[in-house]
């Protein structure tokens, strides 16, 4: 099936087996360069408003910062590999875990969402671009410059007040540590301003994504026929609207406190440090769902295509996604059980947190039901998604454990919590991002990623992941707190920490293999054709890479799997939906 192609509606020539050479339209950078000067080529990328190019820019940005944030994690793990280490100074260690957290959440997490969303959603819903292409470019560059502002703190923050070179208040930046008195340098200002700037970019992207999914769908693409990835991007963007803005508001308050002498979080003037915690986690907890929901979309697409079955319970999947988004807005204070809330407050947040388990387990049930009886193909995208389903279950179970307030009192700020949320952020989100790369790379570049390297990447990353994060659970039980730069040798944590660090290195090697695969396959990969996976959503109907205008004639769909209808005119889906 790999070479089977489907004519683009109204395209001048039928797309050949290999779209790259079919003469439809090809905008691969390499060919572009031959016709233009380097400067023109560069400015073409800088001023572009094409959703596909912006999606690629977002994704490259994500990859660069994935390597940077990963390097910071490796530095942390070298420091903690054995007791009493002097690899990093305590100050540098604080900067490393602050920058690791901030980078991974804002520069990798938020960016990958809008990278994949930008590229894929217009194609999936049969649109020629996003609703507001120029707003799209504006949002990307705002986010990109926000990231540069954050990293400029390594040089710009230094020496002005004789303080450290980068933000060192951790990514949740609790008051009063962020007050002028305790963080006198400019590092914290860079952190707050960078997040405000990125926040505006994210808000713009979210608005654009909602307007696109609601107002740009092709004929027949009703809401209940949208691919689940597009649905999840809609839900995520809606959630982003009401979560990134409280963060922006809180950062404005922090800046007012630091620059204008305000007292929002100044306990000596009657302000409250707990208010910052509330405001931060009102953003911070839904943020985790903002990051994970699009990966549910990725998993739903991949599981369908690689088990050769339509998704089980499509309406339930949509309802569960919306349900998760709503419930996630009411759980933030489970990060704050140890501050001493009332028992009513504790009980509310215990119950609301447990409630998240219902829609999420519904999703797991539906994924397994989709796999059930399918003809499963174990290509790299599917391998990553299968690992995700298992790991997401474990992460959910430790989440339910931590939602019990007395349990949380015991394990708060221990490595158990670190293990829990890395199981989500790495075990669920990063695994699915890798799946998405293997799944959609052929569409974006026209070439397949190498399967052998992909399998090396998968197995090494899986082994490294479990060595690192399974072990961390036990360190948490043994009382190791987070954010400490070293520990005494007689605590009994030595061997386990060494295992965690070894796992970290194995993951690092796996990511380098992946990076090599991305570069190598771009030049030498097998040509993909339009539809290498025999998939069913609209993006696989156009050439790889798609022409600038996506669809020569606006498509018209009648079911959730328009390409199935096309390939099986005798037995189309719309007869049954």
């Amino acid at each position, binding site marked *: 099936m790999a070479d089977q192609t*489907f*004519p*683009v*509606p*109204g395209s001048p020539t039928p797309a050949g087996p290999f779209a790259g050479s079919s003469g439809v339209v090809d905008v691969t950078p390499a060919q572009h360069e031959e016709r233009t000067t380097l400067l023109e080529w560069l400015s073409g990328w800088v001023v572009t408003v094409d959703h596909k190019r912006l999606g690629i820019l977002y994704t490259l940005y994500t990859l660069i910062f994935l390597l940077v944030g990963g390097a910071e994690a490796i530095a942390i793990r070298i420091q903690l590999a054995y007791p009493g280490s002097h690899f990093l100074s305590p100050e540098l260690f604080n900067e490393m875990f602050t920058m690791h957290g901030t980078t991974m959440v804002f520069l990798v997490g938020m960016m990958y969402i809008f990278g994949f969303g930008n590229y894929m959603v217009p194609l999936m819903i*049969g649109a020629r671009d996003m*609703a*507001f292409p120029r707003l799209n470019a504006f949002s990307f560059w705002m986010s990109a410059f926000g990231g540069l502002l954050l990293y400029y703190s390594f040089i710009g923050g230094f020496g002005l007040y004789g303080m450290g070179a980068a933000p060192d208040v951790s990514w949740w930046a609790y008051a009063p540590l962020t007050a002028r008195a305790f963080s006198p340098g400019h590092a914290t200002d860079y952190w707050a301003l960078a997040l405000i700037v990125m926040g505006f970019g994210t*808000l713009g992207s*979210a*608005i*654009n994504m*909602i*307007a*696109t999914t*609601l*107002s*740009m*769908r092709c*004929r*027949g693409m009703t809401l209940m026929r949208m691919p689940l990835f597009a649905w999840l991007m809609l839900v995520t963007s809606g959630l982003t*609207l*009401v*979560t*990134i*803005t*409280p963060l*922006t*508001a*809180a950062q*404005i*308050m922090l800046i*007012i*406190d630091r620059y*204008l*002498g*305000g*007292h*929002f979080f100044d306990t000596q*003037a*009657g*302000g*409250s440090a707990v*208010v910052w915690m509330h*405001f931060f986690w*009102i953003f911070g907890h839904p943020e985790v769902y903002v990051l994970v929901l699009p990966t549910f979309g990725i998993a739903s697409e991949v599981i369908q295509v690689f088990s050769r079955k339509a998704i089980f319970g499509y309406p339930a999947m949509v309802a569960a996604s919306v349900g998760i988004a709503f419930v996630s807005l009411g759980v933030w204070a489970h990060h704050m059980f140890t501050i001493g809330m009332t028992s009513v407050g504790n009980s509310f947040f215990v119950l609301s947190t447990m409630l998240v388990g219902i829609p999420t387990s519904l999703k797991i049930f539906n994924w397994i039901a989709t796999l059930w009886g399918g003809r499963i193909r174990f290509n790299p995208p599917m391998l990553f998604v299968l690992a995700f389903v298992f790991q997401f279950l474990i992460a959910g179970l430790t989440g339910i454990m931590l939602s019990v307030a007395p349990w949380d009192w015991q394990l708060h700020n221990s490595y158990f919590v670190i293990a829990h949320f890395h199981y989500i952020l790495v075990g669920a989100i990063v695994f699915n991002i890798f799946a998405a790369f293997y799944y959609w790379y052929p569409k974006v570049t026209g070439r397949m990623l190498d399967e052998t390297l992909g399998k090396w990447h998968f197995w090494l990353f899986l082994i490294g992941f479990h060595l690192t994060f399974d072990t961390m659970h036990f360190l948490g039980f043994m009382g190791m707190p987070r954010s400490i730069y070293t520990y005494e040798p007689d605590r009994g944590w030595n061997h386990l920490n060494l295992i965690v660090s070894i796992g970290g290195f194995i993951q690092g090697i796996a990511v380098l293999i992946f990076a090599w695969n991305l570069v190598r396959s771009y030049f030498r990969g097998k040509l993909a054709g339009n539809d290498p996976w025999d998939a069913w959503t*609209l993006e696989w*109907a156009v050439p790889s890479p798609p022409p600038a205008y996506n669809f020569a*004639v606006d*498509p*018209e*769909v*009648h079911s959730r799997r*328009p*390409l199935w*209808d*096309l390939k099986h*005119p005798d037995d*189309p889906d*719309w007869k049954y939906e």
Partner: protein
Amino acid sequence: MSAIPISSAASPAVQAWTLPSRGRVAMLCLIIGESAIFTIFVVAYVFYIGKSLTGPTPAQVLDLPIFNTVCLLSSSITIWLSERAIDHGRMKSFAAWWALTMSLGIVFLIGTAIEWHKLIYLDGLTIHTNLFGTTFYSLVGLHATHVVVGLLMLSLVLIFTLTGHLTARHSERVQVLALYWHFVDAVWVVVFTVVYIVGR
């Protein structure tokens, strides 16, 4: 060659296809996001009512800005009248109502400036005097910033109208912008209630 899907005789016909206006959707999304920002500032204001360790207190220094409020709220009516005018293609009347809306907004800002001048120089209340000052100036200031942004956008429309670039064809876009102005007015109702009634 229409390939997606092949229109066989059995293929169901797609009914009339209408989608919501992208401008309205985007503006409503912006309003939702902005509401979340204001919610955080309002919550901070309400939470810190009466928690200042030093004076002056709201009861000592705040006067009800009735005239200001009337001006801003009636600007919602005038902008609605101008929306109606452009819908019916009456461009002169549109420009007049639009200019009146802007004047009302400017009067509101001048009123705020007079109030702040009194608070700062007569009552000695600045943003770092006490918690009340911090929360008051940031909440009212955030709203005033939105009025300024709104006025900038309204003035662009006015300039385009006077130079003849804006015609009845742009009615939809003007109405999207008017949504923002209505939002700014609605926020003032909340700010007024919280700051001048509940908090005093």
